[in-house]
């Protein structure tokens, strides 16, 4: 149910084609339309090549789109390059190494994240006050990172890095949080822990979140809304009570009804246990 009228994220007729004009041409986003309202925690599922990551990248501005518009909290950001849009967006990537600078310290990484959206000047890169704040935030994660703030990020485990990336993405209360299968590279126990942290952070900060996952159970369990993508568009959109009552079999049936084909994805099937 929309809480107020302006969507926090609005994708209007977004088109993105890769390798246009060649043999490998692929229309990854096919007139995609999606509105996210403030506070929505949306899980995204779909087969390989459905366009889930492309949708996130288009939202973040990693590449220019071939058609349509992207609005964030009413502002048309379609023409803005990635680093200019970054002030509205927090991102966590699938690869634990992508979200942090391995050869810099934990506190240095957090200091960079804290300045997202602000001009970077010749002021000193980190203040004592910030260090105190970072220590508090890290202890909430419960991973012991607050005692290792000057350790280089490269020494951390995958799960620790994802947790840190999550913290960096949400430090400045972004308008939108984009999670691109951020637990896929972690073992089940760590993945669960990171998801637990995700829930906590999202609910405490009431963040509008878009989370891609291959795990259908997680997709059902987390969030207030679930969308399924196929061939570059949204084919299933379920929210509220209806979503909570879903089972994996329901999802499979919904998919074949909406797209006219079998939902064939090994990872999704195997992780449906």
């Amino acid at each position: 149910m929309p809480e107020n009228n302006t969507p926090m994220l609005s994708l209007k007729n977004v088109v993105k084609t890769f390798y246009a004009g060649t043999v490998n041409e692929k229309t990854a986003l096919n007139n995609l339309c999606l509105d996210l309202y403030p506070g929505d925690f949306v899980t995204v599922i779909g087969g390989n090549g459905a366009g889930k990551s492309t949708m996130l990248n288009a939202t973040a501005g990693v590449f220019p789109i071939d058609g349509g518009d992207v609005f964030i909290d009413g502002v048309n950001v379609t023409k803005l390059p990635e680093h200019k849009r970054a002030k509205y967006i927090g991102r966590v990537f699938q690869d634990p190494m992508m979200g942090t600078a391995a050869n810099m310290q934990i506190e240095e990484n957090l200091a960079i994240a804290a300045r997202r959206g602000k001009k970077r000047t010749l002021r000193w890169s980190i203040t004592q006050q910030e260090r105190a704040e970072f220590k508090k935030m890290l202890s909430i994660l419960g991973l012991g990172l607050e005692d290792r703030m000057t350790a280089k990020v490269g020494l951390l485990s995958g799960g620790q890095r994802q947790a840190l990336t999550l913290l960096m993405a949400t430090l400045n209360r972004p308008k939108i949080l984009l999670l691109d299968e951020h637990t896929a590279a972690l073992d089940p126990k760590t993945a669960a822990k990171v998801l637990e942290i995700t829930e906590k952070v999202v609910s405490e900060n009431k963040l509008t979140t878009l989370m891609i996952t291959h795990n259908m159970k997680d997709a059902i369990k987390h969030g207030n809304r679930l969308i399924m993508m196929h061939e570059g568009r949204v084919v299933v959109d379920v929210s509220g009570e209806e979503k909570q009552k879903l089972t994996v079999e329901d999802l499979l049936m919904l998919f074949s009804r909406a797209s006219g084909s079998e939902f064939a994805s090994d990872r999704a099937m195997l992780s449906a246990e």
Partner: protein
Amino acid sequence: MDFIFKGMAQGLIWALLALGVYLSYRILDFADLSCEGSITLGASMASMLLTKNVSPIIAVLMAFLVGCVAGAITGLLHTKLKIPPILSGILTMTALFSINLHIMGSANIQLNSVPTLYTQLSGMLHLSKTYLSLILGTVVCLAVMAMLYWFFGTELGASIRATGINENMCRAQGIDTDLTKIIGLAISNGLIALSGAFICQYQGYSNINLGVGAIVIGLASIIIGEAIFSKVKNFFFTLGGIVIGAVIYRIVVAVVLYFNMPTEDVKIMTAFVVIAALFVSKYANKIGKKHPAAKHDKKEEPSIPEEKEVKDNA
């Protein structure tokens, strides 16, 4: 021995080149091959200005600035025209060859008849050239190291360092990576040109071939410096390691040339010194610790832990 001091004095000047190459090659992770052109650019600009009776200090500063411009151009070629890094550097270096000839007006400028930093200060302070060069070189290197240490501790400096480590993360955190690369390359080439400005005054002439072999000198200095000072955490001391690496390299060359060894053997001597340095640092490593420390190379994968570490934290 006197010739060792002279080698050190030369090494301290070439250390500026090594610092500049370190900045682009290691910090920014950009293989900038234009250093042979930039160092000659600095020498050309400084020597041309000196022959026009410009004060040596101004000449040196101008050389730094024009080196920054050259670096910025390499940066623009890469970021705006999407030319690959190596090719951008080569293009700038190729253009600089003609530009340097134009600046000097010929392929060679002699500085024996104009006042240089060395002759002026030598006269004022009544010091021999060797001792003057050592002091001046040390002072300049320390000053540059301090400025770099301060700069890379600022927000802007941190964002440049981060660009060299993980560009994607930077953009996601709102850093304009095009700008950071351009600034990084500008400073790098400015330092390299600064080195050239000092060199031409030290040796009393400038010519178009001054930069020949510069990239080897720069990289050898960095390798030696990093091998010996790999355990150092503080950035200021890491930079100091590079300076010392440059000095060691130049001393090795001086020794090779002093003891009747053929010049061709300089390169193989350098290789031996580097191998020895790496061996010493690995051996010293093993003595002090039970477990080998994590490697200091950012290109290494971080230690993805085994099950037990995950259980501890998850």
